[in-house]
């Protein structure tokens, strides 16, 4: 005979299952369109310095608020830059005045391609101030991400493709649990099923990148 304690335990378990379901549903999204990886840049008229006039504006948010990512899909028609180690597609993000901020740069797979990022920070004149270490990029879910703290005078984030990484393959495994809700008329039964899927993408000059900027102001209550 189930005791009150058992009932309490089961309530907690059901609540936990609902939480898992909510988490899984939150992760559902329309599959991205397939983008063949761009492995070389044939454009002859690449910029010698980044074009700051076309910088993508970013918006600072407060932790706990809805983030407002500034994103761009880089592809064959995007600006390219002559780097010492080869041509690279690039984008410049303009950071908001003020700070300090926690800035997050992410590169997400678009079909078979994932943009191979390299990033440096520029001052208001476009002069490089510092490079973000390539080793600082790690995956956060689907996004290959680096986070950094902004310093005074840092106005632009220059993101270029990394010729040294372009062409390399990336295999990843993704485990998920799907929850199917079936009504019996008097109760709802949750059927859980798992999946274990491998993805295969290629580091490329093209892909989608985004930047979020979070202010140090106290979290929203």
């Amino acid at each position: 005979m189930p005791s009150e304690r058992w009932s309490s335990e089961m309530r907690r378990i059901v609540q936990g299952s609902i939480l898992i379901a909510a988490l899984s549903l939150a992760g559902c999204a329309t599959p991205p369109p397939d983008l063949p990886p761009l492995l070389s840049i044939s454009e002859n008229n690449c910029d010698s310095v980044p074009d700051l006039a076309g910088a993508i504006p970013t918006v600072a948010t407060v932790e706990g608020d809805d983030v407002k990512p500034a994103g761009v899909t880089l592809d064959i028609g995007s600006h390219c830059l002559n780097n010492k180690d080869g041509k690279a597609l690039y984008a410049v993000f303009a950071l908001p005045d003020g700070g300090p901020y926690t800035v997050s740069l992410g590169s997400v797979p678009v079909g078979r391609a994932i943009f191979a990022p390299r990033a440096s920070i520029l001052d208001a004149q476009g002069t490089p101030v510092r490079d973000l270490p390539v080793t600082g990029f790690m995956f956060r879910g689907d996004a290959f991400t680096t986070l950094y703290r902004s310093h005074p005078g840092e106005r632009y984030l220059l993101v270029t493709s990394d010729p040294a990484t372009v062409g390399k393959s990336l295999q990843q495994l993704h485990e998920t649990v799907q929850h199917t809700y079936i009504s019996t008329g008097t109760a709802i039964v949750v059927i859980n099923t798992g999946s274990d899927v491998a993805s295969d993408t290629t580091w490329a000059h093209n892909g989608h990148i985004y930047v979020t900027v979070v202010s140090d102001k106290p979290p929203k209550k």
Partner: protein
Amino acid sequence: MSAWGGKMSKFSSRLFACLIVTGLAGCATVPEIPFDHASNPNIKTIGLLEPSMSPTGVVWLASDIGQSMGLIGALVDAGMQANRDSKFESLLAAQGVKPQDVFVQDVHAALAAHGYTVTDIHEPRPSSDLLKTYPKGGDGTDAYLDIVVYNYGYVASGIGDSTPYRPFFAARCRLVRASDGAVLMQDAVVYNPVGPASKVVTISPDPAYQFTDFDALMADPPATVKGLNAAFAASANAVGTLVQ
């Protein structure tokens, strides 16, 4: 407490530990704070607080039929979970594996690779979460690294052959300046997350370590240990990267 009550309590504890894994992966509630090395050039010696980490891991079946069968199914599930965990614990013990020692050694190596001197510090933990207060320094330590390992072991997302057991690991970490207690870095690391993830570092599992079912996992103890160690090492390296 009755035997069943004890079993249910243990089961729910395990389940919630697993929920924490999915929770960590799905919606981290603690904001990520990246380490700003340029602004903290004097951080050279890190005091590694003894991590909060269960001496035993789990072998977690993230979805199975029992979960859909109400109370009876949950009880059967609890029994099977306890059986798997017990056998896994015995396997590790037979192989002479002390998970916390292995992980701490990996963190040492990861921090040393980034040029830090590391000292081990035992600090009492009132709970299994990150500490609320930290030592005040004065012991030659520039910063304290607090790590809470929520769960580790093996997970299979389902019961079929297409969803093998793979190693998993989930932890939260925080670097605190010794002189004033300022939080210099805060993040979470999940090796082989089950489900969507965003605001935590996620590491795809090494495909070399997969076991079709629980029997296969138990049948090759050296490989099982190697897979777990791979998860520890990769996760420790991620912690090292977070403080580079």
